[in-house]
């Protein structure tokens, strides 16, 4: 149990030993043990693929004014366009193919979510490590700040910031980072406090290694498993939050049509029974969030030594 965390960690060792049961192999076999997690990983892989290559695989370019015709507007799923192309999921008010619009929207939603997740993780992890490593006053001050911030729901923090900052991609990333860093900081501090009291940190301190080296080379790698789990779940949360804020009209500008904005556009047409413009982007958003959460859940089960047999 005491070294359980380290065992599941080093990914680089995997290729060196072909037949030996390496930690990484054990992790993989544990992870793909469950059909739900395997399925979720595959779906998530597809979603990431779509997001990365949206311009290449979309049937049409939904933001190319030359090919989009208003005459094709508000067509139901499966209808054909003026020039004989099938819109599998219909079109929106401006005549854009919904499949293509969703591919592009996914790209923006995932991009914003992942970017803010990574920045928040870097800031949160550094702050959390500093709190745990230095302790005392630094720890007190940082954790007080984290406590205060976590007493406000993240949507409120983001809303307050956006009300002051205004719209824009950079602004929503800033808002999401500020709304989420505290979750990372608290997680990392928690596991770093446990690790700090172990012998290898003591040994590193006795070798008179620098603070920076001890924190980033010794402490950080051993705090990674919980950080990865929180990272996946917070990224899903960030995507959902961005969609919500964009839907409310305080997030992304109209020039960056994420899934949330697509759903907001469809809202106007819904009362007249044209459900598909809001429905399908919502399903895409839902699938993205659910698969990330499922993968995160399984990661938590596999990476947590306490839950292992």
């Amino acid at each position, binding site marked *: 149990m005491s070294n359980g965390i380290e065992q599941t960690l080093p990914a680089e060792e995997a290729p060196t030993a072909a037949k030996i049961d390496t930690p990484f192999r054990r992790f993989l076999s544990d992870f793909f043990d469950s059909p739900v997690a395997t399925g979720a990983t595959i779906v998530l892989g597809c979603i990431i693929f779509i997001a990365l290559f949206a311009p290449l695989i979309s049937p049409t370019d939904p933001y190319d004014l030359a090919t989009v015709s208003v005459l094709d507007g508000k067509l139901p799923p499966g209808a054909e366009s003026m020039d004989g192309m099938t819109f599998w999921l219909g079109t929106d008010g401006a005549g854009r193919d919904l499949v293509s619009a969703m591919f592009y929207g996914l790209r923006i939603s995932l991009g914003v979510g992942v970017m803010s997740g990574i920045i928040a993780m870097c800031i949160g992890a550094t702050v959390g490590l500093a709190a745990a490593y230095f302790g005392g006053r630094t720890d007190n001050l940082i954790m007080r700040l984290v406590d205060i911030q976590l007493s406000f729901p993240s949507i409120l923090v983001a809303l307050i910031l*956006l*009300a002051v900052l205004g719209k824009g991609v950079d602004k929503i990333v800033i808002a999401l980072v500020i709304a989420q860093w505290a979750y990372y900081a608290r997680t990392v501090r928690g596991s770093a406090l446990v690790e700090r009291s172990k012998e290898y940190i003591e040994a590193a301190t006795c070798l008179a290694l620098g603070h920076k080296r001890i924190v980033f080379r010794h402490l950080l790698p051993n705090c990674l498993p919980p950080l990865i789990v929180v990272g996946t779940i917070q990224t899903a949360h960030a995507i959902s939050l961005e969609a919500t804020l964009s*839907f409310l009209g305080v997030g992304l500008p109209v020039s960056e049509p994420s899934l949330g904005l697509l759903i907001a556009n469809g809202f106007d047409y819904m009362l007249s029974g044209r459900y598909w413009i809001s429905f399908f982007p919502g399903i895409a958003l839902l699938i993205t969030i659910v698969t990330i959460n499922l993968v995160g859940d399984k990661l938590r089960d596999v990476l947590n030594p306490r839950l292992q047999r």
Partner: protein
Amino acid sequence: MTVFIIRRLMQSVVVVLLMSFLVFGGVNLVGDPVEMMVSDEADQEERERVIRSMGLDKPWYAQYGYFVINALEGDLGKSFVYGEPALQIIVHHIPATFELALTALVMAIVIGIPLGVYAGLKNETKAAKVIMAGSILGFSLPTFWVGLMFIMVFAVMLGWLPSTGRGETVPFLGMQVSFFTMDGLRHLLLPALNLALFKISLVIRLSRAGTREAVHQDYIKFARAKGLSTRRVIFVHLMKNILIPVVTVLGLEFGALIAFSVVTETVFAWPGMGKLIIDSIQNLDRPVIVAYLMIIVIIFVIINLVVDVLYSILDPRVRLQDVKG
């Protein structure tokens, strides 16, 4: 205890001050404060009056002082859109939001606890697995999209319930409430359920976990061994013990409900604080934005303070640790 409350009070004051600083900075330093506080149609005379009243010729700390003094007197400017004091407008919108949040809270308890207890007792059954899968879905579903789908299904397709606005209200304790009219309740049902969905999932998980833990405890075994009926064991012995954590967490979550009502109110055009702030952001009604931000922070600080104090009464370890630390 007194030390603990004084500490918490001081912390609350610091948070409100920090927030006022952020709002002040956002409004006065990032943008042009005159542009922010005067509507675009104002003439030169009005502009100069505002510049003088805000003391914009003074250094920033003096300006901040003016802002705080005005705020303490309840003067946060007049709304450009409604032409009334911003603070008054916000206060008018508070009852609708609280009504929505309270109904959602009750729904979360009434729906969540029975489902959670069932899932905990009949852990291996299909129904229990469906409930748990449903709760994962409830966590993942974006609130605003579920709201849209509710409108789509129940208002547009089936035509059972109205989709927007608040129904008929009657005055009760000096507030307008919609609990006592059929029309009011019909309007309340969809938005409240939408807001409650996330909390229902939370309550299901909490009460399931509580039940699973409690069924192995000695007091349940003893109650069974005594020959009590299953019903009595569940509703008296089990319930009492799982209710404490569930209710505590829900109390904490009341603030989150108020925050998330921004989303639900926008979807269902519910005339509460949340819809007001979104409209104000879109109309660039800056005095209302500033007033909303200050009020919501104060509401949250009060909720957190009350929860902390109640918690420390229930669990003395919390306050002892805090005084030591």
